[in-house]
């Protein structure tokens, strides 16, 4: 994909998004004046979406006219090395969030750190394992103990019961 194609696609998606937002703002809400209570709930988001539609249309037209530097750029939007490192990072974050709902945040964080440090970063096992244990422990101490914000634990909740008894 070239930068030009990306610019074009982004403008098109923004147009679609603004149309969707206009429809959604008008959906069951008043976008005009309600007698005695002022502008309706849909008024502000609707007209904002209209502005968004206008500006994204302008971007699209300027893209057609080759008016922006991006619309003249035919180099590739993401190079191979970027796809590798950024793509893997995003995937790792995706699985981190997905796993958090099932096996809990702590186990997922450990897996994420191990993957990132050992396999993506190529650091030594010692360093990877030390950080893998230290960082989630620090997070536990800070969030659960100091701030009393429980992070999701999923099916691993029972493992934490002894620690709860210790700190609460």
């Amino acid at each position, binding site marked *: 994909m070239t930068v030009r194609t990306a610019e074009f696609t982004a403008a098109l998606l923004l147009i679609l998004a603004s149309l969707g937002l206009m429809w959604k*703002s008008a959906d069951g809400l008043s976008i005009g004046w309600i007698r005695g209570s002022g502008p309706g709930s849909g008024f*502000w988001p609707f007209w904002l979406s209209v502005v*968004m539609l206008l500006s994204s249309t302008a971007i699209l037209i300027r893209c057609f006219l080759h008016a922006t530097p991006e619309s003249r750029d035919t180099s590739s939007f993401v190079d191979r090395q970027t796809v590798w490192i950024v793509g893997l990072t995003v995937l790792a974050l995706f699985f981190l969030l997905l796993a*958090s*709902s099932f096996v809990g945040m702590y186990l997922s*964080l450990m897996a994420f750190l191990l993957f990132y440090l050992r396999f993506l970063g190529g650091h030594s096992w010692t360093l990877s394992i030390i950080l893998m244990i230290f960082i989630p422990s620090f997070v536990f101490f800070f969030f659960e103990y100091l701030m009393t914000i429980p992070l999701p634990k999923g099916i691993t909740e029972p493992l934490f019961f002894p620690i709860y008894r210790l700190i609460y």
Partner: protein
Amino acid sequence: MESVLIPLMGGLADALQPLNLTMLVIGCLIGLFVGAMPGLGSVNGVAILLPVTFLVPPDAAIIFLAAVYYGAMYGGAVSSITLGIPGASTAVATVFDGRPMAQAGKADQALLTAAIASFIGGTISVVLFTLFAPPLAAFALKFGPAEEFALMMLAFATFVGLGGGDIAKTICSIVIGLVLATIGLDIISGKPRLIFFDISGFFHGVNFLVLAIGIYGIGEMLWTLEQTKGDVQAHRVSAGLQSIKEHLKRIKSYIVPASLSGLLGYFVGILPAAGATPASLMAYGMTKALSNDPDSFGKGNMKGVAAPEAANNAASTGSMLPMITLGIPGSPTTAILLGGMIIWGLRPGPLLFTEHPDFVWGLVGSLYFANIVSVLLNIALIPLFVRVLTLKFTILAPIIFVLCIVGGYAPTQTMHDLWLMLLFGVVGYLLRKLDYPVAPAVLAIVLGPLAERSLRQSLLSSQGDPLIFVERPLSAIFMLVAVVLFVYPLALRWWRARRAGDNVVAAGE
């Protein structure tokens, strides 16, 4: 004068309370570190760390975050000089002369210049801040909803007029932020709005931190990963007592340009779209233009390091002025601080001075100490920071990601927000690659609810007549300036196109 001095003394005493002082020192330390790391600046640090401050009372929290902001301005110079990569965009201009100095083996002198000049700029701006803030807040007390709305339009207009980005993309970014802010229950009618696909998570709205951490945490890290490919190289530095002693004699060579740059930086920093990066570039240009030997700039002139560093520190203080007095952030970082104030249950705006004087003056007092603590820590820890900079980025990146994830979970404690955050991070990163400015969106999501409320209140009081915004004199002035800022870049382009057209015609003849 007394009306300032007495509360200032109170504020200074407040900032010295054990908890506040501890938070201040930790904040400066983290700020220095965050600023020194390439890819992380004050805005990233403040966004990622804001959830952590729920632990302490608001007074201590704002002192901590302001200290991070301050420290980051000092830290930015470290990587500009030792790596030749700006540690934050605010330190871009520091590379111009800082890098040649490092290559000539004078990295220690460059780092010391940066630290002392930052201190000069910081001190000037904090004093100006103390003098300007109370009268401005008193003036702003006269503002009604119409003026508030006009002022926010003015803030957004500065992005269009002065931001320097593509106009359509800037407007798009602002509007996306404003629309995201409308998701959830309408504050006035209580009706649910924009509940996409009936996902219940949208009922509590999109917290501004979800967008801020998404863009400035995850998006920024993806961006940096792409830029550095996970690797950086640092210069060796040895800064001992000897070089400090030697440096003290040279301060007088740059104290004047640093002071002037501090003044310039402060006033540029007040503008929402301008902030520390353009301020430092302008200060660099100004110092070069005023210098006797402009040719030596870019080849390792000390003044070339001093000017941008003084200016970026001053600008960071300047950007707090409209945040505290008007409730309009002067930079993306202060936008996040403003959002934080709303979470802590404070209502930003001129009333803050009368309703929460302890909070405001504690912050002002802390700025004085933050400045001193930052300069001392900076000089003392130069060797440590240089060591940290040699760490591989693949160690830092996962740690930051973990902080983003747990920090993003803290405000609302739903997985829904984390998914949104990841989405915003990836989309923000991709849009940034296409040169969409992202800062306006963050400013807009913070100001969105306030803007909508003031718009609807104004229209209600005028019974739907939009002329209310031009009938009230102050609001009319703000609107007029906003319109000028909107039109200015278009007029400029039209003018250039015409001149270019003329030249073509002239050449044809």
